[in-house]
């Protein structure tokens, strides 16, 4: 499994965990379960994780597929520079975020899923991966090649006119070799 970018899977897992944590938290608060404070935390943490993980990072190899409408969040996440770029930070952040979820049944699933996402991010970080934003590239037109810009400076390479004049009486003697080698057209 040589060229897998683990961060891509970690991202999917973390986003899912955020949603699960959020849902569990909403149920815990709405149902006023015992320990609902942890559920409230789950809501906040879930929203935060979703916002952080929604913008997909740029792949090192191949084309990157954006999630719908992720541009604004990409800019926000990019603004934090190395904190969001580095996957070690994310791994430890998710590990820390998931712990309070373990104290209440409604958020325990979100906690475990986020923990798993944290482990995959750790693996990605060890492999040296980074989060790079997907930003629209500014169009650069390929400059036309040098030869088309200017008209030819020198006359074509051929011997002087009197040598080139047709001499029907001596056809073989009239043949000449081009002083500069001429290559054929691209074939």
């Amino acid at each position, binding site marked *: *499994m040589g060229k897998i970018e683990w961060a891509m899977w970690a991202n999917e897992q973390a986003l899912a965990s955020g949603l699960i944590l959020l849902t569990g938290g909403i149920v815990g608060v709405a149902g006023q379960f015992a320990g609902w404070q942890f559920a409230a935390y789950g809501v906040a943490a879930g929203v935060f994780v979703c916002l952080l993980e929604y913008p997909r990072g740029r792949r090192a190899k191949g084309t990157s597929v954006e999630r719908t409408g992720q541009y604004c969040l990409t800019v926000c996440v990019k603004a934090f520079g190395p904190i969001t770029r580095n996957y070690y930070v994310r791994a430890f952040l998710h590990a820390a975020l998931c712990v309070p979820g*373990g*104290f209440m049944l409604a958020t325990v699933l979100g906690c475990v899923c986020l923990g798993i996402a944290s482990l995959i991010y750790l693996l990605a970080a060890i492999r040296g991966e980074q989060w790079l934003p997907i930003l629209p590239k500014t169009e650069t037109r390929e400059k036309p090649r040098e030869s088309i810009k200017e008209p030819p400076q020198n006359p074509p390479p051929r011997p002087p006119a009197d040598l080139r004049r047709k001499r029907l009486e001596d056809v073989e003697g009239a043949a000449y070799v081009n002083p500069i080698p001429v290559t054929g057209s691209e074939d």
Partner: protein
Amino acid sequence: MGNWLANDGLSFFVILVWLGINAFLFVHFYMQFLVERWFYSRAILGQALPWARAPAACLNFNCMLILLPVCRNLLSFLRGSIQVSDRSAARQLDRNLTFHKLVAYMIALHTAIHILAHLFNFERFMDAQLDKNDTLQYVLSQIGNGDNRSYLNPIRTKDTNPTYVMFTTIAGLTGVFMTLALILMITSSTEVIRRSYFEVFWFTHHLFVIFFIGLVLHGIGRIVRGQTPTSFQENNPAECEKYYREWGKNGTFCPVPNFAGNPPMTWKWVVGPMFLYLCERVVRFVRSQQKVVITKVVMHPSRTLELQMRMKGFKMEVGQYVFMQCPSISQLEWHPFTLTSAPEEDHFSVHIRIVGDWTEALYKACGGDKTEYTACSMQMAIDGPFGTASEDVFRYEVVMLVGAGIGVTPFASILKSVWYKYVQQNANVFTRKIYFYWLCPETEAFEWFADLLQSLEGQMVEKGLTDFLSCNIYLTRWKESEAAHFTVHHEAENDPITGLKQKTLYGKPNWTTEFNNIAAKHNGAKVGVFLCGPLGLAKTLGKQCRTHSVSGVKFIFNKENF
């Protein structure tokens, strides 16, 4: 609007029936928990009990279904036997992966409802234990404290919490493992992961084994408890509910109610498909043990590798595909490739594009640096062949074959077979006319196919059969330098790219014009449209088929996908 029924009607009907069964099971099992026998259970749990049981029934149904679409050997067998009688029914089996995904989404949905309902159930059971001494819920929770057999509340003490209970009951623990397996399977099955990191998807998906083990064991703890029938005779909730403080005391007529759990039902639903899937894997393994000899390896331009192989007892039809495994590269990976040889040949061949880890390793192992290599002693395992839509080609009078780039491979097999049938055997073939479209972004990709087309063209001219096959090759992208070359050689007799008499066309085809022409020429016929290519093109062609299937001409769309 065209005749949509011809193309999608049966699929739509199947989906409708499946949704209907889901809805029926949901409502039916919801109602089952509203009866009097469950009165005391509902006294503690409220409506959360039926809200948990209804999706559980749907989960049983969907977990039964999910293994079936991926039993490809079984499907291949079914397809073969149905095809004899009903072509459109056989086509439904092409949509197996789509159906598998739909069922997976439904499982995810019902799992979510089930878990959320159980969150309430756990909470309410806990509250009942922590309640004041004189509430019905508290009294109900104390039943069975002596022998731990006739209890209602699975939380037996108030010195605990729901999380702890979940991890110490069989139902809870298996639930956790199942849900984790399901979530990991889903997050690694998204389009991005599947298309780019297939191995992650493939290996993680094997967590389904844990899922099914958990599923079968989930109910053996009998944690869902209702009043036993004998107890119901003696203690009718309608009459006895109010007297809960006096149950069982001397002189009262309401004894303490007894509760028991339902026996586990899930295994009855899933044992059949689990057995079928086990057979499927055994068949794959047995097939993989058969010896495959690589007779020839050819390296084509545009990073395409051709392998010609022989295997004892191998029988194929046009346009089928096989799964290939190379133990020296990976013991566990099986990759699908379309067969490019015709059934009439003495070997079978595949053309593989080098794009990922596995194909790259294959290229190196086969001595990729040489252009031709007659002997390759590498071990190979083959599972298949499996049928896809291309098998149906000769059942249509008129056929449109559209291949994009490497997607032309199944059609290579068809065209070769056509050549053998008409030219060598002169067999009576039902198909009268083939329109072939090949859309390609680069010129080198033509090379390996150009030979085949050239020989076909020559033979057609010789036998005076030029009308049978109409080839349209479209170069969809080109470099500035090449464009100059094309313009200069525009008037040449043979095409500058392919060397064929049929000229290469530039850009994308105008499908509306093409469909109109074909519809005009073949009034009253059923035209089979076969595509192997990207999703965008599939949508376009699907729409064209629907639009142009009017009075007389019917365009039936078949898409091939892996």
